[in-house]
């Protein structure tokens, strides 16, 4: 299954809804999306991963790249994910300590930390 991407705004947050597979083949499209948003002045991103079926380390790399980009503008990148098999990948790689991970978009949007 291919990657699907859609974005919407809530207040100062931009929600990126990702579906399908984020892998070595599709990750470049997610990167482009994140780069475009930051270039557009959107520095507070919420990446909704609830419809992601597959995530590999290339996808992790793009998310980490996104985090670095928004941080350069004092922004934030929050993830929404409750899928155990996806969470496992963040856990294995220690990235649960790098990304704030939320259970719902509403929670991520209202989070300030």
């Amino acid at each position, binding site marked *: 299954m291919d990657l699907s991407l859609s974005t919407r705004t809530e207040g100062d947050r931009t929600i990126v809804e990702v579906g399908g597979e984020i892998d070595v083949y599709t990750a470049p499209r997610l990167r482009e999306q994140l780069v475009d948003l930051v270039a557009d002045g959107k520095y507070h991103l919420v990446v909704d991963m609830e419809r992601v079926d597959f995530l590999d380390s290339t996808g992790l*790399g793009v998310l980490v*790249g996104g985090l670095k980009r928004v941080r350069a503008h004092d922004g934030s990148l929050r993830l929404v994910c409750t899928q155990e098999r996806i969470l496992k*990948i963040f856990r294995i*790689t220690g990235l649960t300590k*790098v990304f704030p991970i939320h259970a719902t978009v509403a929670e991520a949007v209202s989070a300030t930390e």
Partner: protein
Amino acid sequence: MATVELRFSALPAHVRTARLVAAAVARRSGVDEAVLDEVRLAVGEACSRAVHLHRRHCPEVPVLVTLVDGPDLFRVAVTDEAPAGDGADDDMDLEGLADNADLDLDAVPPGVGLAVISGLVDDVSVEPAAAGAPGMVVRMSWPISA
């Protein structure tokens, strides 16, 4: 001891093919349904790593995946032919990744792929593919339940 061997040009698209084949053969071999996701992810990581190295060092050489439906184990070997010692597999401080300004923004250190594999697969090894030849082989296995 049925065997399937897949050789593919070092292109990201073929990593998906490799995942698909590995999961299909694993399923038929009797690997537990619950574990197939791990097989797909781990084989995908090993192949992404190999594709990445080949593109850097030997883009015209294909990557080799061998699937062996052993008596008790389903075994996978992913073999690359890239010269060792380019630091690609260096251990990464993953948690420090986001703060590491030196790194190319989106570079996934290939070590992350191996970290994912090690986290997922109990039985995994990374060794020189053959004495005197360049390249490494990532070997993984899963128990066959049925």
